[in-house]
Structures are given as structure tokens and as C-alpha cells.
């Protein structure tokens, strides 16, 4: 009879493949792969040099007017000159420090979320979702604490885009959660109300929501009562997105096995505690990709406020490129606008991926 000794645990083998190994395995593993690699290289070599040349090597960055743009590449002078307008819109110049503080506060809340191991980062995040919006709203609109009042029709540019997106995101998530729970409620009235709400808002285009908020709503309000156009847009966007959010979250709720509800009940947890401690944390984690998808589309949909006369960043660019003192700067303008959106949306996407990794526990099923 053979007797086997239990073997010692050994460290895993080092990665065997070096750079050449990687290239061989990933780029040249089969004839088709070789052909695709060659095609890719050809496309990069054809398109990248002229693009870089236009955007960087023969581009102009300095100067005050169109005349500074002589080298034939991109005229970034236009962007650098108009940057204050793209950032603040018509916000009065002497008051722009308030907007800057707002940006700083936002950064102070957001940046810790990207860094691992910052003590109390969830409290910073919680402040970002509750205290921050109120603080910034007071700061930007003024009228109290000796701050000069700045009406919202002066707000614009990147600042307005961020206000719309931030309020939309912070509002849509909790309302979406409530609607999703309501739609799955045992109580018929709650279920009907939530379902109707979701289906109504989801069934109309955002553009018509905004249009109704700005044109029709005043008709129904009594004479003399007016309420802020930006506020109306914010409510419209939040309601619209929360209907989408509700369906995303409902998908997550449906994916939670019945056993989880039963275990929570058997331990004596009531409805709200089961939901808050057991079901929602799991359901929300499952649908992070869907939630972020909704956030990203919300962010980009804020551009639609142009139809009710609000000047978001895209609209400030739009109105600047028709300025007669600048010619042929449309490309630069739109590239800048697109790049600004991309930076924010891409950050959201990266953040969500980091969050998914962090919340991942145990084995995937």
C-alpha cells in the first residue's frame, strides 16, 4: 500500500510570460489575430499623427483674438479666452468667487471617494448628499448672510450643468428607491400610485417634460405666482430620472432570492429594517452598472435645458461660436464641450467600477 504525505503549501508560480510572451499571446496568436493587429496598427498610423498635429503640435493656445490663430492647427485660443463664460455663464464677475468655492466644496467631497483608506469618507459622502446641496444653493443664489442675490437666469456654463446633474443624481436615487419599493408593495394603493407615476414619467420624452415645466406650468399657476425656471427644470429632470432609476432598482430587488427575505423575517427584522439592512444593500450593489448608466445619461440629458432658455455648458459654447469676432471655431468649441462631458462621465464610470470591486465579497455565483 502506498502512503502519501500531505504536501506543504507553496507560493503560486511567478508570471511566466514577459513582454514578448504577452505580445505573442495577445497580438499574434493566430493568423486572424495577426491580420487584425496589422489592420489596427495601420489605422492608428494613418489617423493618429494628423489628429495629434491638429490638436497639439500646430495648435495655438495663447493670444486674445482670432489673429493669434495662424499656425493652421486647432485654435484653442478661442477656448482659453471664453473659458470664464463656459464656466460661469452670466454669473456676475465680482461674485464668481462664490462659484469657485462651490467647485472646491464639490471637489473636496468627491476626491476622497476615489481614494482608498480615507478615514470617515462615508461621512464626507453623506455630507455631500445632504448638507452640500443646501450649502451650495445658499452660496450661489445669495440674498442672505450679506451675499448679493444672483438670480438663476444669470447662472450658466459648466456650473449650471453641474448643478442640474448633481441635483438630478442626488434626488433621483432616493426617490427611485422609494418608487421601486412602492411598486413591489403588498398594498394595492401604494402599488398603483407608484406604477402610475413611473409609467407616466417614463412614457414622455424629457424634452416635453421640460417644455411643459417651463411653458404650461405657469398657465396653471395663479396670477402673480411664479416659481423659478431653474427650479422647475430641476424638478422635471429629477422626476423623469427617478422613474428610470426606480425600474433599474426594481430589477435589482427582483434578483434577490426569496431566502434573504425569509431569513430577515425569521430573525425578527421588520419591513424597513429588512429592506434597509439586507435587501437594498444587495440589490443596489447588483445594479450599480445600471444606476451609473442612468446617471451618465442624466448628465448628458441636462443639455436639453437649452430649449427652455437655460445656458448650460453646451449652450454657452453654441452661442460663442456664432460670435462674429471668431471664425471657424465650431470644431474647437464642440470638441471642448464633448471633452468636458466625457471627463465627468468617464469619472463616474471609473468610480462605479472601483465601487463594484470594493463591494465584491466572496465568490461570484
Amino acid at each position, binding site marked *: 500500500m502506498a502512503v502519501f504525505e500531505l504536501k506543504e503549501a507553496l507560493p503560486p508560480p511567478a508570471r511566466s510570460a514577459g513582454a514578448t510572451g504577452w505580445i505573442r499571446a495577445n497580438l499574434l496568436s493566430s493568423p486572424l489575430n495577426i491580420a487584425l493587429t496589422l489592420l489596427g496598427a495601420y489605422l492608428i498610423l494613418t489617423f493618429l499623427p494628423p489628429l495629434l498635429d491638429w490638436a497639439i503640435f500646430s495648435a495655438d493656445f495663447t493670444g486674445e483674438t482670432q489673429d493669434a490663430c495662424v499656425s493652421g492647427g486647432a485654435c484653442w485660443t478661442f477656448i482659453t479666452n471664453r473659458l470664464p463664460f463656459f464656466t460661469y455663464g452670466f454669473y456676475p464677475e465680482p461674485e464668481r468667487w462664490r462659484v469657485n468655492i462651490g467647485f472646491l466644496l464639490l471637489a473636496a467631497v468627491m476626491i476622497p471617494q476615489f481614494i482608498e483608506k480615507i478615514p470617515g469618507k462615508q461621512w464626507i459622502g453623506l455630507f455631500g448628499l445632504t448638507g452640500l446641496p443646501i450649502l451650495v444653493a445658499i452660496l450661489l443664489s445669495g440674498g442672505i448672510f450679506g451675499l448679493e442675490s444672483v438670480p438663476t437666469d444669470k447662472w450658466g456654463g459648466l456650473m449650471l450643468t453641474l448643478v442640474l446633474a448633481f441635483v438630478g443624481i442626488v434626488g433621483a436615487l432616493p426617490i427611485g428607491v422609494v418608487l421601486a419599493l412602492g411598486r413591489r408593495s403588498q398594498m394595492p394603493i401604494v402599488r398603483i400610485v407608484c406604477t402610475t407615476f413611473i409609467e407616466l414619467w417614463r412614457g414622455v420624452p424629457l424634452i416635453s417634460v421640460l417644455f411643459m415645466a417651463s411653458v404650461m406650468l405657469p398657465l396653471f399657476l395663479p396670477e402673480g405666482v411664479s416659481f423659478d425656471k431653474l427650479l422647475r427644470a430641476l424638478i422635471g429632470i429629477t422626476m423623469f430620472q427617478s422613474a428610470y432609476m426606480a425600474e433599474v432598482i426594481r430589477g435589482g430587488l427582483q434578483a434577490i*432570492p426569496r*431566502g*434573504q427575505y*425569509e*431569513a*430577515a*423575517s*425569521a*430573525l*425578527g*427584522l*421588520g419591513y424597513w*429594517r429588512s429592506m434597509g*439592512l*439586507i435587501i437594498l*444593500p*444587495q440589490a443596489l*450593489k447588483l445594479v450599480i452598472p445600471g444606476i451609473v448608466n442612468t446617471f451618465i445619461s442624466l448628465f448628458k440629458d441636462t443639455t436639453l435645458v437649452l430649449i427652455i432658455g437655460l445656458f448650460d455648458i453646451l449652450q454657452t459654447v453654441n452661442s460663442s461660436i456664432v460670435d462674429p469676432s471668431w471664425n471657424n471655431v465650431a470644431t474647437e468649441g464642440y470638441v471642448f464641450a464633448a471633452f468636458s462631458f466625457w471627463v465627468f462621465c468617464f469619472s463616474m464610470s471609473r468610480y462605479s467600477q472601483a465601487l463594484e470591486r470594493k*463591494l465584491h*465579497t*466572496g*465568490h461570484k*455565483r
Partner: protein
Amino acid sequence: MSETVTEDEIRSHHDHLGHEVGRDVVIQIEQMNKWYGDFHVLRDVDLTVHRGERIVICGPSGSGKSTTIRCINRLEEHQQGRILVDGVELNNDVKNIEAIRREVGMVFQHFNLFPHLTVLENCVLAPIWVRKEPRKEAEERAMQLLERVKIPDQAKKYPGQLSGGQQQRVAIARSLCMQPKIMLFDEPTSALDPEMIKEVLDTMVTLAEEGMTMLCVTHEMGFAKTVADRVIFMDRGQIVEENEPHAFFNTPQNERTKLFLSQILAH
């Protein structure tokens, strides 16, 4: 039914199995009836359980074993009859349901641990939120219980990182953290490999030795023979035979029981 762990094996490890059953009634089920739509799942079920009593429920698949014990903590609602748990009647009064669920622990076939929480967090969640215990106290007791189910070193891990047997023992510890008076087990070992069945059964036998009132739906014959005070046989939603284990296994009365037992023996 099967016998992953034999009677002798259990007896050799546990010498305090013999015990006195209390006189006071902790669960009283009278004429319980339940329907799923038109389907009459439970028919006139009567059951009285005394303090410290261990009851094993067996029977063919679909006979209503799970449904019966799930009615005891209101995971399923019964439509006729009365259920009293520790003197509290189970009805639509949420207060009563909450009171009963605090006293009754349950262990499921598929463990149903909360995958987003660590083992320790799984254990302290209900004591903190339902019993309003201070976290420190709850954690200390959870650690003691994890030691008792022999996995204190896994406290910081997530359920997904444990074996099935370890998960089920965590589930038992989680229930015990609520300091229940009664424990319900719904086929706690049917999703496990033999090696793991042993670990879990061992934990359950220890619990029985300590005098816990237990209702177990299980197909583990060795466990039923050694631990049970009474074995209940269900068929088509009815209790058709009820006896102490020795008589139940050696001289079954009902035809259905005889057939069921002979099928196991032939197995």
C-alpha cells in the same frame, strides 16, 4: 432518509443525550389548515410541543413538512386553526408576530446567510437591531457562539468564502445569537456533502444536549433515533403517525409509514 451518521457514532461522542422533557407547553397547534389557492396543503394538523422537547418531522417530498414549521414563525400564513407559541397566539397582530419571531430561531436548507455582511456582522445584526443590544455585548456573545460551532477563526470572512458546512454552522450561530427558546430546522443538512453533514449534525446534537426545544425536518435517521423524543410522520398534509423513535422505526403502525421506512431500508 439516510444515515450519514449512525446512532452509535452519535452516542459515542455525546453522553448527555438522555433528558427530562418539561411539562409546560411551548408550541400548541390546533386544527391547523392551509391552502395554496385551491390546493389543501395542511389538513387538521395538531401538534403540542413541550419545553426541551426535540421533535423530528419526516415524510415524503411535498407532504407539507416545511409548510408546517414555516407556519410556526409566520413565514407562511395558516388559514384555519390556532397556533400558540409560548402563550402568544399567532394572528394578524404584527406585535404578536414580532414577539414570536424573537423567540423562535430558524435554520434553512440553503443557509440564507447575508452575503454582503461578514460572518460576525451576520450574527450581530438582529441582536443589535431587534433586541437593541449594545454592539460590544452582541459581538462578545456572537464570538462565544461561533466558538461553540467551532468556527471563531472565520468571523471576519464573508459567507461566500466558507464551505457549505461552515455556512450552515454560521447560520445556526446566527439564530442562537437571538437567544431563542425554540429552534426550527428545515432540512439543514440536505444541501451538504457527508463530511459536512457530520459537522452540522454534531452542532445540532450539542444544542439538543443543552436542552434546546427543537423541531427538525430531517431525513437523517441516526439523528432521529438518538436525539428525538418524538418522530412525526407526515403524508399529504396530515400527521399520519407520531411515536417515540424506537417504536417508530421498529414497529410502525400506518401503511404509509411502513412503505416509507421500507423504501429507506432498501436504499
